[in-house]
């Protein structure tokens, strides 16, 4: 009789699971097979969560699976509703991508398309123009400097001195 290959991936320690269960004061006695069943269910749960998250990661062409990817999955499925509280502090994916005005630095900044960087440049220039509206030469110099920058400096600060 051909035996199915048992996927004995990572089995979680039943004793640990039982401890976690009994942290809840309402939970009393637990039959011994119970933590073993929960271990298997947990395996399936993680598989499901990770493979769905991986789809998001791949779709975004990201090399690293981030908490934002996980968050988007949690929010998209009702069965994962119980996890919502865990991700309230996690940034949304949409926020990180759509918000062209934010100067917040993320490690993926350098991969952003040039269009965003020039938007940033324009914003800075407007600010500078407003500050030094009479100092056109200074503004032109700074504008050119920014245009030459190939990376985004979120902490870029410009000091204008009037003599």
């Amino acid at each position, binding site marked *: 009789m051909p035996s199915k290959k048992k996927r004995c991936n990572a089995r979680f*320690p039943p004793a640990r699971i039982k401890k976690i269960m009994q*942290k809840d004061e*309402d939970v009393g006695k637990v039959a011994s*097979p119970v933590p073993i069943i929960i271990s298997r269910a947990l395996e399936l749960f993680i598989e499901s969560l*990770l493979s769905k998250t*991986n789809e998001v990661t791949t779709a975004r062409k990201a090399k690293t699976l981030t908490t934002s990817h996980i968050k988007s999955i949690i929010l998209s499925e009702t069965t994962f509703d119980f996890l919502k509280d865990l991700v309230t502090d996690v940034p949304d994916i949409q926020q990180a991508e759509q918000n062209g005005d934010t100067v917040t630095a993320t490690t993926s900044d350098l991969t952003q398309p040039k269009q965003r960087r020039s938007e940033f440049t324009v914003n800075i220039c407007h600010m500078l123009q407003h500050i030094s509206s009479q100092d056109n030469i200074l503004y032109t110099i700074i504008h050119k400097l920014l245009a030459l920058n190939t990376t985004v400096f979120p902490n870029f600060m410009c000091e204008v001195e009037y003599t």
Partner: protein
Amino acid sequence: MAEREDDELSIPRAALNKMIKELLPNIRVANDSRDLVLNCCTEFIHLVSSEANEICVKQQKKTISPEHVLIALENLGFGSYKAEAQAVLQQTKAFALKKRKASTKLENLGIPEEELFRQQQELFAKVG
């Protein structure tokens, strides 16, 4: 045994890391993502436990049984896990049965003690 706060109780990181490696061998997973998944695991355990506990109480039982857990999984929307969970339950039962059979086998060879003693004497006589 390392002293650990009860509040930080979660499944071992190593187990999770192994699982991630087997599932997603070509993807980098940030540390904080792993932490998040660990927390999700703990939440899952609590969720299933409290649901199973409620079912147990409704049935006026004192011990949470595997059947309670299976019903809990169904109620929580994880009915698709039931089949595998049941398979594991069967395996556990079969294993326990095997163990019990093995121990009784040794006790009940079917030969009474006097007969065994007689056979032993015969063997000694042969050697001597």
